[in-house]
């Protein structure tokens, strides 16, 4: 092996040692054509971004303070929203998957509503509840002097609202798929339900939680409608990358392209790193 080197190795593999394979006819064009068209439709827009990007001025444009501020705000709020979602969403998923109480099915349906309503509706709803004159916001304002709308906190809340259901659904699925006999085994060893959850269930569904968190983060990063309605569009405090892209498109399309590329790159980088660790496909 060492004497022959990698070349010899490759030769044997390519040569007569290759196992005979049954030929399975050509894929039918009725499937191949739409598949190729679909793939092209998904890939071409990105190609357009790359082709039209102002590569010569890219360096200075990317490091402009507004771009960096929007990028930082997006990354930090999306991460904060994911953390909040984990903190609230994992227990919620456990409740839905592992307990039985009246109204559980209704709760499950309600929890998934933000998946299907337009995010802007979510923003309006948040404003009605947590706005200065909202149902709860009124008291937050008069009693504690806390105003949520049009602050970075509002950005996070808007993102949690639209993104947490992804996490809940994903974790609930993982919990339902996990072998409950391990939890029973832990119970026979004297573990309370809380101990069973932290020491046995959580390690078992960690991949599911990871996948859910990635989905949740990606959804939070791209959040637009609820954010602009509930948190507004103030550069530096509530203008996230998607909002910045939209605003730039109105006055300076080249800037929009740059911002889009940055957002694309960051998303891909994060998803690629996390995917290897968490999501098995």
């Amino acid at each position, binding site marked *: 092996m060492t004497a022959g080197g990698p070349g010899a190795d490759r030769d044997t593999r390519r040569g007569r040692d290759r196992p005979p394979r049954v030929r399975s006819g050509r894929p039918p064009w009725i499937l191949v054509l739409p598949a190729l068209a679909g793939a092209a439709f998904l890939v071409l827009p990105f190609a357009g971004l790359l082709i039209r990007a102002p590569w010569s001025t890219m360096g200075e444009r990317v490091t402009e303070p507004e771009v960096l501020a929007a990028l930082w705000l997006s990354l930090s709020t999306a991460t904060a929203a994911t953390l909040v979602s984990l903190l609230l969403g994992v227990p919620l998923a456990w409740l839905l998957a592992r307990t039985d109480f009246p109204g559980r099915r209704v709760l499950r349906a309600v929890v998934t509503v933000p998946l299907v309503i337009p995010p802007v509706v979510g923003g309006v709803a948040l404003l009605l509840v947590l706005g200065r004159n909202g149902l709860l916001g009124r008291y937050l304002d008069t009693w504690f002097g806390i105003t949520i709308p049009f602050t970075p906190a509002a950005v996070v809340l808007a993102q949690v609202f639209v993104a947490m259901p992804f996490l809940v659904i994903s974790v609930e699925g993982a919990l339902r798929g996990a*072998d409950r*006999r*391990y939890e*029973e*085994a*832990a*119970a*026979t*060893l*004297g*573990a*309370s339900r809380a*101990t069973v959850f932290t*020491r*046995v269930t959580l*390690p*078992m569904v960690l991949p599911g939680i990871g996948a859910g968190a990635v989905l949740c983060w990606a959804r939070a990063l791209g959040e637009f409608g609820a954010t602009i309605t509930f948190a507004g569009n103030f550069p530096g405090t509530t203008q996230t990358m998607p909002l910045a892209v939209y605003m730039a498109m109105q006055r300076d399309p080249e800037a929009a392209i740059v911002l889009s590329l940055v957002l694309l790159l960051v998303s891909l980088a994060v998803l690629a790193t996390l995917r290897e660790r968490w999501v098995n496909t």
Partner: protein
Amino acid sequence: MGPDGAARTPPARPPALDAELRLSRGGFSLDVALEAAQGEILALLGPNGAGKSSVLRALAGLAPLTGGHVRVDGRDETTTPVERRPIGMVFQDYLLFEHMSALDNVAFGPRCQGATRAAARERAAGLLAHMGLSDHAGARPRNLSGGQAQRVALARALAVRPRLLLLDEPMAALDASTRIDVRGRLRRLLEEFDGATVLVTHDPLDAMVLADRIAVVEDGRVVQQGPPAEVARRPRTPYVARLVGLNLFRGRAEGTTVLLGPRGDADGARVEVGGAHRGEVLVAFPPRAVALYPRHPHGSPRNVWRLTVDGVERFGDQVRVHLAGQLSLAADVSPAALAELGLEQGSEVWAGVKAAEVECYPG
């Protein structure tokens, strides 16, 4: 141990396990009463779906009862939640926690019971050493062999100092080549446990080797209970007879003659037995006690029936001949005898059994 022992100590020591379990699930109902003494190993033997595992789950508190009680060492545990029952359970497939080392698996129970991390690990290490697994303390469960995983699971169950040990099909996950060793080792480890042990198996050999007493469960009921030798010699149902490899018939005895039937495929046949009996009886004899003849045999007080060959199969170094007619039975003969008799499907043959070879007992 037995009833005499209990009678000698005036305030009779309660049995280690006294359970009456009733539960129903869909069309299946279970109604089982079990008792086991300190240090006794009770095997629940039965076909798949008979309710053996349900019994174990009910004892552990994992399946809700619709009626009955569970008493361990005289204390009522019927409504005690699973995590506070004085039980240790070895599950089918062992269910070792994959994300923990063997040592942490065993230390899990003591930790849950409030032991410090150091104390829990010390106890776990001691148990693993006792099971000959010190070298594997740091191993992940997936790197253990079947027999090793079984001992880790047993150590994990014993680590909580249970009063009742439950084992669900402890041998099912093992391949045939390792079974003999593992079974013997398990037997020795179980003998050291001072509480009651209930183990579930569908393999009669496991039950015979591992248990002090066998309870045969069929269709949610205990149909026979007794020491392994007794169950093996005097089966009470066709299922048990098949498991232990005996021909079994039900009938009415008048002196040394048993008239088979009234139900079943042995209607009207007579069997001569060694001793005198009266009333409903069961008769059993092993296939190897059956001799086959081409013509009606002469002499010796035998049971002789003219039967038809219903099937022939290999059975170890013998050939098992299934016979039908006045009664259905199996006979084991040597391949040479089979060739000499020229038997094949549908052949007529005379089958004989000595009266002394027939076990007869009240039904």
